[in-house]
């Protein structure tokens, strides 16, 4: 197995973030996409009406003029690209998985397995139902945490920290710190 150097991954992430901003007009993020997909499904299930971006812009323009007395049409800037659809979000997710799969195949690191092979994790949670429950619980906590923080390692750690957003600096410090503490705690418990 040959792993790519760490800096290659860093450059790839940087390239992806820049390309996303340039092509989509929005900061790169992952956890928010899950939320958008779930929200779209919820709205569709509830039969809620959908509003076009143009309608939202026009409504905002009208209320801005009413509130601040600003002439409609100035200084409104031309809208950026349309809001990504759930299908776009899903396509992005598929792209992430596909990219990882392709690189794993290319570097010979693709080793599918039905068992939990990490000795460290197995020493803590075993390899059976307990391990599955631990993984599932951890995943649930990650999901809850990302929504509470309004983002995850990509939105906060990659983009937010790079743009020095205070909330992202705090969130990233918190989840990295918690991860370090948890790692040491697991070492003690093993």
């Amino acid at each position: 197995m040959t792993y790519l150097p760490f800096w290659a991954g860093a450059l790839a992430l940087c390239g992806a973030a820049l390309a996303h901003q340039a092509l989509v007009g929005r900061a790169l993020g992952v956890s928010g996409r899950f939320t958008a997909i779930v929200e779209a499904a919820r709205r569709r299930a509830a039969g809620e009406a959908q509003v076009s971006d143009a309608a939202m812009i026009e409504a905002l323009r009208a209320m801005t003029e009413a509130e601040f007395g600003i002439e409609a049409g100035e200084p409104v800037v031309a809208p950026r690209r349309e809001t990504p659809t759930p299908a776009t979000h899903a396509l992005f997710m598929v792209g992430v998985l596909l990219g990882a799969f392709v690189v794993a195949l290319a570097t010979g690191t693709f080793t599918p397995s039905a068992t939990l092979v990490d000795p460290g994790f197995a020493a803590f949670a075993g390899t059976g139902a307990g391990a599955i429950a631990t993984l599932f619980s951890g995943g649930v906590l990650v999901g809850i945490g990302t929504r509470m923080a309004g983002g995850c390692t990509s939105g906060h750690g990659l983009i937010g920290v790079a743009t020095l957003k205070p909330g992202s600096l705090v969130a990233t410090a918190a989840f990295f710190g918690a991860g370090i503490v948890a790692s040491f705690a697991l070492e003690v418990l093993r």
Partner: protein
Amino acid sequence: MYDLFALSGTLGIWQDNYCRSDFPRCERYIRSQRGESVAKALLPNGKVLALAPRPAR
């Protein structure tokens, strides 16, 4: 809110008047501080964005 307003330059007007200055009077901020859910279409002045929906597909 950002999702809703990300498409228009008029966002800056609201940000200048509320987010970057007198944010304590922002209705969205007030409700979030109370732990209440904040509707996406709620404007900082407490009014709701008047939208003309199209039927769900």
